[in-house]
Every structure is written in structure tokens, then in C-alpha cells.
């Protein structure tokens, strides 16, 4: 669907001519003229303006009443005044009203120093209150959930938090009860506000009414430093600002990137302190001694690991996952292929996929962006549950449905959170996503095989057909042929797994072809990989059948499932686990439990001691959390993003690339890297479609490699090959 592309107009604010995008709201347009109009309730991320707080009243020439700047679109030639006595009086009046019941307990308030109410009272308020009556008093603070406290005395009823619950996360758990001056924010009958994205309300609150329990009384704004990086706890790769005090990450805030996270975080990424500083964190090298992991020195751990790998040689294998960077994956693959002579490396739990399919899926013209989910005519969620697998896009899909009328279709093996918002929901039997995709491909083609394939997939054939109609836009209600139909397909890596995986991916490509996704801008495929940096690791060469840049590897290796069988059978003896634990990370547990049991040596680069590591690793290298790491990752839509260290490494932890370089050195291989950025350089040289990429170019918001000239190299190779 068409995306806003407003022209610039000229208007006058406080006597100065200013350019601003047409129809932007005055509060935003004013910023183009360096004028700040104060707001409380206005937050475009929550949807359209509500005009509730009345803080933004300004004078617009030709309109007798003061107008809310948050809800008045700027027009060419408009004359706006924010400095007249009338405006100032109204703004002073609103501040005075807001403070009527506000306790002014700033000295003991966590928001103090970073509080919009403080700032606006100081900047626009009258400095005195004429309110002499007693203020209301409540028990405070009280728990709203296990993570959030609410102080109802401080609340100014701006509606932001309840709008988030209703219009963004759509959990409808947080509401206003009662009416007028008695209104208060609450849940139903004392139920806690537990929802995957509930933590966002803390960041939305413009006063100290909602505070995060883990952060309460931990720091003042002048005690802390904020630094930006990327969360790698899931494939969403949300951009975050981490708040640091004394080398500890105290909280995570959203660092809005409209092409990634739209300014939201999930609770897992937000309440991140335990993942970084928790008791499970590995902070020193360990080796198994007498059946127990015991701390040791780096030298001993490296020597032990190198010795074991040297002994295993081509009987070594490796898995990478989690938040492992492209650089770490790249170096790991080099060690295996260049020194150990083993091609057995993988980053996909699912099993091997033919390389031509990997390459076809990476075709730049087929890639959907996250923002396409908001603007497409139709979105198909196929064999994944976003809120579980890539939480932040759940919100983006909801936004599209709510605000843009996106037709949402779900095809999955079990009920999911988005089902209620879907125009079409089709189920298939567990593990049958690949067959389902074939049925859908057939329905979009001549339809000859729909009945047979749908039955095999355990789906209703009629539902498959009506899904095809919805996607193709050929239904009775669809206006035919007006504009190219934009369809975005969000598909889970599960589709590409198991015996039907390759056929499923082939069918997916057929679906894409039949819907014309490659030819349509704003349409495409978006894979939800099983691992947070699944895409980056594959492109860096962590695949059994591909080297860096999805180029054929000289000697094909075993995929993850075969590695497990070979370990269990004794054909492989050593396993390196780079931020990956096959017992907990979505790998086939039944295959992997005996594999780890039987392996002679398991070397883990791990930041936490999860089950498989704790029970089976012989050597454990402490790995960095995303707050400590330097390097790059690739978002599922191809956006290369940069991790920046925001704290010093915990305990004896060393940089991941350095550990691998040291290990290689012990094995007699000089990887030729002395700094982190040098690894990135090597990677950019090795991957043709990253050619010339620098950390500087990636910048704070990342860069999609498909948008760079070098992307043609993948295409050129494909055509040539």
C-alpha cells in the first residue's frame, strides 16, 4: 500500500519561516524550526493523537481557540505562535492543573532528573501553585506486576500506558477504572499486568508513576551512562540503549529504529540484567576435572581445548548460534576448515538445505523489510509464532492490521497470539509446514494438487484455497488490478526442517514466484531464523555446504543432525559449541542427548551454564554478553547491525574473536587478526555481497546489504553459476 511521502511546506512559527513535512503535527513540525512544544500524552508510536493532556495548546492565526499542537496538521502558509501571553497562560494553567494532585516527591522519585513533568513544569509552568487544599493520598508504590511498580499519586492520567495495552500490544489488560478525577490505572480485579511487552509502559510513562522494580533506587540520571548497541537475545535484534552504572547494566531502553523495532522492546530484552550479570553467568574459563567443571586459567583452558581439537582433527565438528557474531562464526569456520580439515559445521538445527535454495532465498529482490509488514496488502505468517520466535514483529504486524488494514493470514501448527487479528487462519499437522507450503503453492497455481497435499498436511483444502485467494487478492471484495499486490510472508525456519524441509522451501519460492513478490516493491519473504543471528552466521559461512557468502564449500560437511548422529556413533569425537547448547536451543534433544554423552570432547564458548554445557562440556570459555561484545550481526531482513561494547567484560571474559584467534594460534594457525575490526574487514573481503563494508558505514542504525551495490554480486554469481 502507498507509504507516506509528504512534500515539504513552509509555515511560520514564532515569527520564523520554517520548512516541515506537510500534514505533520505542529508539535513535530515545530522542531524543524527549533521550537519545542511541550507534550505529555502525545506519542506517535501509540497511534493517532488523543489531545488529552492539553499541554501543547498553541495559537494558530485565523482560528479563535487555542489548538492542540499534537493534533493540528501543519499546512502551507500557516502562522503559529507558541510564545504569546495567551499560550503561555494556558500552558501555565495546564501545568498547574497537573500538579494539583501530583505529590512533588521528586527527591525520592526514580524519575527525578529524567522526568518530562519536571522538565515541563520548569520550562512552562508558573513556578507556584495556588492549590491549597489537601492532595489525594494513596498507598504507594504498589506492584502492578512482578517487574513494574505503580505510584498512583504521581500519575497524571496521560493515557499512554493504557493506550499501549489497548492499541499497541493489544493485550487489553491495563485500563483506566472509574471516571473523572477518580480515574486510575489498573488491571482487572488485582490480576498482575504480565504480558510479553508490558515493560514498555515504564518507558512511556512521562512521570514517575510507573517504574521498573529492578531499576528502582539503583541510580540517578547523573550516576549513569547510556550506550547504544543491539540486543541479540532473539532474531528481532532490537536496537537498545543500555544504562550502565559502575560497569553494571541496570536497564535497557529502546533505541528507536523504525526499520527494526519501531521503538519497542520485549520484556526479555528489557529486563536484561540477569542475562548479563546473573548468577548463571560464566565469568572464568573452566575445565572438567573429576567430572566437575572447575575454574582454571586461560592458558590451561586454551591448551586443553587445542590439544583435544588437534587430536580429533577432521573428526571435529562445530555448532554456532545464539548471539554469536558474524565475525565469531567466520573465525570458527576458518579454524575447522583451514586447520582441522573438518567441514562439519552448522548453525541451523533443522538439517541441511541444498545450497541453491539458500541462495535463492537470499535473492535481494525477494527480501521483505520489517516495515513492509505494516504497509503490505496482505501478510502471511507461516509456520512460526512471532511473539515466541521474534517478538517485536508481533507488534509490527498488529500495527499494520490496526492502522493500515493489512489482511493478516496465519498458517501454523498450533494456535498463536495473532490468530484473533487474522482474516484467515489455517492449521497443519506438526512438522507438516513444508507439505502445507506445497499445497498453498498448488492453490496459487493450477490447483490440481491442493486436495491431496492439504490432506497430507492435515489441513482443510478449502481453507488453503481461500488463503490463496486472500494472498493473491482475487476475492470478490478485492478491486482487481489497481496496484501491484504487496504480500509479505513471514516464515519460520521450522518450515525448512525435517524430511519436507527442502520441498517446503522450494514451494515457498514457488509461492513467491506466483505472487510476483520479486517484482513487487514492498513485497517479499522474511525468514524468522531459529537463532538470533542465524542469517549472519549462514552468510559468514557457518553452514555445512557453504563458505562465506553462500559460496559452495570445497568439501561438503555434515549438518547438525548428522553431526549428532556421528558423535553418538563415534565417527566424530570433538564438538565446539559457540554460544549454543543443543539441549536447550531448539535442536532435536533426542538426537543430541546421546551425542553429547558420547563425545570425547565438548568445548563451549558460553555466557551461561545451561544444561548441555553444565553436564557435558570439557572446556568452557566464558563468552561475552551482547553488552560486552564487539562485532556485527545480520537482522533477518539483511540489515547488518553493529554491536558495541557498553561495559567492560565480566570477570575474566575475553573477546570472542580473540579466544578463537588464540585457540587457532595454539593449533598453529595464524588467523591474521589483531583487533575486532580486522575480523570484520576479513569478513567483508570474504563475503562478496558485503564487499567494501565498514563499521562506519553500518553506523548506529545498520545497513541492509541488499541496498548496497555489492548486493549485485550475489545475483551475478547466481546467474553465472
Amino acid at each position, binding site marked *: 500500500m502507498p507509504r507516506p511521502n509528504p512534500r515539504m511546506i513552509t509555515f511560520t512559527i514564532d515569527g520564523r519561516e520554517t520548512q516541515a513535512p506537510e500534514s505533520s503535527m505542529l508539535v513535530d513540525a515545530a522542531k524543524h524550526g527549533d521550537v519545542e512544544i511541550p507534550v505529555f500524552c502525545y506519542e506517535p508510536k501509540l497511534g*493517532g*493523537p*488523543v*489531545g*488529552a*493532556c*492539553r*499541554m501543547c*495548546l498553541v495559537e494558530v492565526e485565523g482560528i479563535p*481557540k*487555542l489548538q*492542540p499542537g499534537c*493534533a493540528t496538521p501543519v499546512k502551507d502558509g500557516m502562522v503559529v505562535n507558541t510564545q504569546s501571553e495567551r499560550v503561555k*497562560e*494556558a500552558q501555565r*494553567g*495546564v501545568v*498547574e*492543573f*497537573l500538579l*494539583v*494532585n501530583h505529590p512533588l516527591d521528586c527527591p525520592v522519585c526514580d524519575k527525578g532528573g529524567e522526568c518530562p513533568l519536571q522538565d515541563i513544569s520548569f520550562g512552562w509552568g508558573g513556578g507556584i501553585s*495556588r*492549590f491549597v*487544599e489537601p492532595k489525594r493520598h494513596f498507598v504507594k508504590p504498589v506492584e502492578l506486576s512482578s517487574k513494574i511498580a505503580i505510584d498512583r499519586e504521581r500519575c*497524571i*492520567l496521560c*493515557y499512554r500506558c493504557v493506550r499501549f495495552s489497548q492499541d499497541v500490544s493489544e493485550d487489553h489488560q491495563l485500563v*483506566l477504572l*472509574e*471516571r*473523572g*478525577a*477518580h*480515574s486510575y490505572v489498573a488491571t482487572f480485579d488485582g490480576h498482575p499486568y504480565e504480558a510479553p511487552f508490558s515493560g514498555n509502559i515504564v518507558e512511556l510513562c512521562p512521570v514517575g508513576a510507573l517504574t521498573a522494580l529492578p531499576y528502582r533506587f539503583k541510580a540517578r540520571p547523573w550516576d549513569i551512562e547510556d550506550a547504544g548497541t543491539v540486543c541479540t537475545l532473539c532474531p528481532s535484534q532490537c536496537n537498545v540503549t543500555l544504562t550502565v552504572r559502575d560497569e553494571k547494566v541496570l536497564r535497557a531502553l529502546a533505541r528507536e529504529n523504525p526499520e527494526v523495532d519501531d521503538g519497542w522492546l520485549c520484556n526479555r530484552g528489557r529486563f536484561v540484567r540477569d542475562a548479563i550479570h546473573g548468577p548463571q553467568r560464566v565469568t572464568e574459563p573452566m575445565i572438567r576435572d573429576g567430572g566437575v567443571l572447575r575454574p582454571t586459567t586461560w592458558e590451561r583452558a586454551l591448551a586443553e581445548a587445542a590439544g583435544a581439537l588437534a587430536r580429533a582433527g577432521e573428526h571435529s565438528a562445530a555448532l554456532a548460534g545464539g548471539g554469536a557474531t558474524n565475525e565469531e562464526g567466520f573465525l570458527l569456520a576458518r579454524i575447522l576448515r583451514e586447520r582441522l580439515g573438518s567441514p562439519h559445521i552448522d548453525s541451523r538445527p533443522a538439517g541441511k538445505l541444498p545450497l541453491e535454495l539458500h541462495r535463492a532465498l537470499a535473492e535481494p529482490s525477494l527480501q521483505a523489510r520489517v516495515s513492509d509488514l505494516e504497509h503490505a496488502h496482505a501478510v502471511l505468517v507461516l509456520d512460526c509464532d512471532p511473539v515466541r520466535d521474534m517478538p517485536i514483529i508481533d507488534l509490527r504486524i498488529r500495527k499494520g492490521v490496526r492502522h493500515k488494514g493489512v489482511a493478516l493470514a496465519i498458517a501454523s501448527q498450533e494456535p498463536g497470539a495473532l490468530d484473533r487479528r487474522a482474516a484467515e487462519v489455517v492449521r497443519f499437522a506438526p512438522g507438516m509446514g513444508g507439505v502445507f507450503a506445497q499445497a498453498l503453492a498448488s492453490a496459487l497455481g493450477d490447483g490440481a494438487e491442493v486436495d491431496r497435499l492439504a490432506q497430507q498436511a492435515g489441513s482443510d483444502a478449502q481453507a488453503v484455497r481461500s488463503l490463496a485467494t486472500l494472498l493473491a487478492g482475487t476475492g470478490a471484495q478485492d478491486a482487481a488490478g489497481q496496484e501491484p499486490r504487496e504480500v509479505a510472508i513471514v516464515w519460520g525456519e521450522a518450515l525448512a526442517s525435517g524430511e519436507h524441509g527442502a520441498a517446503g522451501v522450494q514451494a515457498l519460492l514457488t509461492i513467491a514466484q506466483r505472487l510476483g513478490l520479486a517484482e513487487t516493491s514492498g513485497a517479499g519473504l522474511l525468514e524468522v531464523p531459529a537463532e538470533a543471528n542465524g542469517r549472519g552466521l549462514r552468510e559468514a559461512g557457518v553452514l555445512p555446504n557453504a563458505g562465506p557468502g553462500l559460496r559452495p564449500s570445497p568439501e561438503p560437511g555434515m549438518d547438525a543432525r548428522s553431526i549428532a548422529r556421528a558423535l553418538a556413533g563415534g565417527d566424530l569425537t570433538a564438538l565446539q559449541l559457540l554460544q549454543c547448547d543443543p539441549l536447550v536451543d531448539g535442536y532435536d534433544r533426542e538426537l543430541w542427548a546421546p551425542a553429547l554423552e558420547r563425545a570425547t570432547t565438548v568445548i563451549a564458548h558460553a555466557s551461561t551454564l545451561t544444561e548441555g554445557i553444565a553436564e557435558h562440556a570439557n572446556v568452557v570459555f566464558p563468552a561475552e554478553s551482547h553488552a560486552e561484545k564487539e562485532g556485527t550481526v545480520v537482522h533477518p531482513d539483511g540489515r547488518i547491525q553493529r554491536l558495541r561494547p557498553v561495559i567492560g567484560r565480566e570477570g575474566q571474559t575475553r573477546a570472542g574473536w580473540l579466544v578463537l584467534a588464540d585457540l587457532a594460534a595454539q593449533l598453529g594457525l595464524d588467523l591474521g587478526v589483531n583487533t575486532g575490526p580486522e575480523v570484520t574487514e576479513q569478513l567483508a573481503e570474504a563475503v562478496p555481497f558485503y564487499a567494501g563494508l565498514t563499521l562506519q558505514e553500518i553506523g548506529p542504525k545498520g545497513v541492509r546489504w541488499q541496498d548496497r551495490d555489492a548486493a549485485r554480486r550475489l545475483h551475478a554469481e547466481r546467474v553465472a553459476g
Partner: protein
Amino acid sequence: MSAATAERRMLLLNDIDEPGLATREVYERRGGYESLRKALSMEPEALLTELKDSGLRGRGGAGFAMGTKVSFLPKGAAQKYLVCNADESEPGTFKDRELMQKCPHMLIEGIAIATWAAGISRAFIYIRGEYVLQADILDAALAEAREAGYVGQNILGSEHSLSLVVHRGAGAYICGEETGLLDSLEGKRGNPRLKPPFPAINGLYQGPTLINNVETLSTVPSIVKMGGEAYASLGTETSKGTKLVSISGHVQRPGNYEIELGIPSREIIYDLAGGPADGRQVKCWFPGGSSSPVLTGDDLDIPYDFDSLAKAGTMLGSGAIIVVDDSTPILDVALKTAKFYRHESCGKCTPCREGTNWTVKMLERIAAGEATPMDLDIMASVCTNIIGNCLCVLGDAMAMPIGSMIAKFRGEFEQSIEQARLAAEGALV
């Protein structure tokens, strides 16, 4: 000749107490639904012209020209809605209640006609929940109208189809505000919405929506019957037609009266309603419900119409006159008024939520003998900070009458402050 003795034109209250008028049988016998037949034989555009020619201004409070409102609706096939605002809650107002209870078919006929003129096929009557009897009567009348084919598919064989539902509110004054009403009808809290977009463009279920008051729609059959021009010959140049006036408070014959707009207010208060009890004088009066700035006994000769009242700094509003005689302290009236708006403020916007609350507290402080005359200035200033700065008109609806009381009865307020202060001191000693 005074209003009480003059031959007054009755369009709405004509034989309103005739037994059985709430039934279709009696209503039809009196010529009911003939206007609908006539309207359906006309092109919607021609019908709309009649409505515009009538000059009928909305009877709910804002006084916006009904025909113009209809013409704001976008043309085309989009689903449009009509919502009849029967959430009559403005203190002092009870005219719609009388119409719905006694002549429900007139409203239904008006809706059937208006929807034809506006190209609307779905309509709702949002009636305040307290009006149980009236809602039951409307439901019964609607069932009769459906049975007779006045509502439903292809009304009287025409192309016009209409689904009509009576929706009961549950007690919230703010739902009389048109956008609060829409949210309430959508099953939400009755919070007013930001305007624009106006309901005519984006209203119920985000569709174009025409919202009219009961009295307005009940007038439509008369306009169709007599013709827009004939209707416009009643009343004054800018306030055409007849109007129901609800009069209450300190008068001897409170109730509903149908007047031609433009007659002197004195005739309504004294000749029709009998004025205050013998020996009592009019101290102040609300001319258009409790939201209108008060007038005093000196203002009784102001003609009762939209423009004359506006010129006097107040408004005709819902057409509800509340008379207060000289036995009641102005402080009591102010406190009642302010408390009402505090109770009914939805809480969405700051000045209304906090301003009504604060005003009540200041008035209570006066009553408790803890105020000084300076507090009157603060109160006036608080009212100023409310007026024009709120999301909807509820805040203004408190601030304007309270502001007018302070301005017009400052001396009495100061006396009350002093007396209450002395009483409080006395109690301490």
C-alpha cells in the same frame, strides 16, 4: 397577548396526551407516517433541500443547522450511520423524555425520513439508561414499525432500507456529547474524541455518522408535511420553528412547553410556568440547561432564541430553563453545579478533570468558612484556564456558569465568605 393566552402553534406536543398515541394505530389515525410516504416519493436531494429550507437548528444544545449537517456526509457507497442522541442528561432538560414516552413513532418516522435524505441504512437511538420506561416504549413502537414496514428492508416498497436499534446507556452525562456517545455506543468508556475528524466524516465504527437530537428528528415529519418554507416562517429569522422548553426549579408550573422561538423569556417563565412563588423574585436563571451562563432577574425581557441569548453572553442550549428565586444562596447553586460537572467529567483531559475538582474544593472551602475573597479571583482564573482549553465542552459547561455567577453575584459570594468565616470562628471559640 402573552404566551399563555396566545394561540400557539403545536407541532410536537399537539394532543400529545391522546390515549394510545404511543401505538402505531393511533399515530397513523392522526396522519402518522404520511410524511414518510411523502418523503420516500421524493428524491433524497429534494428532501434535503426541504430540510435546509426549514432552517431547523439542532435541538440538542449546539444549535447547528440540521440540513447543513446532513450535507457534510460524504456521498458514495460507504456505510453511513445515523445516531439519534436520546441521552438527554443536561440538568433541567426533559423534553425528549416527553416525546419518546408519548409519541415514539414521530421519532421513528423522523429517523426513517432523515436516513433516506442522507443515504443511511443503519441507525441507532442512544437513550440514557435511566429512561427505562421510554426505552421500553421505543422498543415496542419500533417492533410495530418494523411489522408495518416503516423500518426494515425496502421501506414501503421503496429503495430505502433501514435497520434501527434502541441502545440503552448506563448513566454518564458525557455520553450526551456526540463523540463520547459514539465511543459509548461502540462499547467503550464514553470519552469524547478529538475533533476533527468530525463524526460526519469519521464517526461510529469510523464511518460517516449523522448525529441528531430526539427533538430535531421528531420535528422532521412536520417539516416534510408542511414544507420547509412554511416551517421556516415560524420563529425568528435565525431561530426558526417551534421549540420545546423544559422549565423547572422555582416556578409554579414546571414542565414542557412548546413555543415559537423569539418570544420574550419572561413570557415563558411567568406566563407559562407561573413564575416563582408569590413574594419571591427571580434571582437568576439558566436559559439553556446548567451549562449556560446564568442570567438575572434583569434579563427577563431577552427574546428566547439562539441569537438573542448568545448576544446576552449565554446560550439557548438544550432549551431548559432553571429558575432560582431569591430564597436560595448563589453559593448553593454554584456548588451543586460544580459538583455535578466534577462527577460527570470523564477524566480524559486535564483542565476539565482537575479544574472541576479544584473548583468544587474552593467552593466547599467558602462554605466551610476557610476562604477569602481572593479565592474568588483564583476561582475565576481557574475557570478562565478551563474555558476553550478542553477536549470537549464539558469543562466549559462548568466554567461558564460558575464564571458568570462569580461575575454577577460577587457581592453575595463575598458576603457568604465573610458569614461562613465568622460562623467558623464562632464555632472555634
